């Protein structure tokens, strides 16, 4: 049960949030220019990093706002919380073997 620091409401239990998977995936500007394979990549393929990942969360049972999180998938430490639409802050994108 993670403790997630919502940028608007403060630290709250994971129970109040919904997971939004990999962050910084922008919808292609011209979908019709993509091949089926490229489109499928956008739709379905996501990284599965053992280490620090950038992911999205939404505070479903609170302020209902989306935001981004940098989290280590091994230690579950949350390294940063930053606004939706913002660039990730400078941090060590650690990975494990």
């Amino acid at each position, binding site marked *: 049960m993670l403790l997630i620091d919502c940028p608007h*409401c403060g630290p709250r239990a994971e129970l*109040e949030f919904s997971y939004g998977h990999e962050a910084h995936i922008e919808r292609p500007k011209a979908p019709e220019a993509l091949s089926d394979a490229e489109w499928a990549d956008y739709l379905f393929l996501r990284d599965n990093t053992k280490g620090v990942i950038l992911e999205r969360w939404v505070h479903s049972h609170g*302020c209902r*706002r989306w935001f981004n999180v940098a989290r280590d998938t091994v230690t579950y430490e949350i390294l940063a919380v930053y606004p939706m639409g913002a660039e990730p802050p400078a941090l060590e994108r650690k990975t494990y073997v």
Partner: protein
Amino acid sequence: MPEILEHHSALAHLGLAARAVATRDAGQGVGLAEAPYRAAVNLRGRLDDAGFAAGAEQALGCALPAEVGAVATAGELSALALGPGEWLVVGGSDGPALRARLLAALEGVFASVVEVGQQYATIRIAGPKAAETLQKGCPLDFDAAAFPAGRCAQSLLSKIDVLVWKRSEEPAFEVTVRRSFADYAWRWLHDAAREYGVAILAG
């Protein structure tokens, strides 16, 4: 001439008025009451838009609080900050009038003013064990230092969405839920409070 039609509260079917005890005291345990109907409007807008901030302040008599969880009160109206750019404005009993007043003050401004007073029911839980009762089903911290008077928070209570508001220093909370969840919320709170002794109070 059509008759004046009855307005039913969310918990009308429980017959609470008939079951309420005379005293307003919760004793050593918990007192529960359905709060009477109050007007409510969901207000959306951008505080960095001067027109919005000024218009809202003029209509309400107080500035909208920026910090989520803060509450600003003027007269019978309170504005509860639910999220960035989202407030629940409550108070009085005339929802359409409240909405109209805000719309007029926000003419030409990008904003949303939606009447939602009928959408919610509010249960008042009071007494020395009120916080412990809520703590059973809600992951917020109800310690007095963590949830001071004058603050509100949205969260979960058991399986339903709630807005919890501690209006004063009194050990009491207002729990606002969607109308169709009110029955479950009432039964759940009553059951949770049983071990402390629970009394139904007049709303």
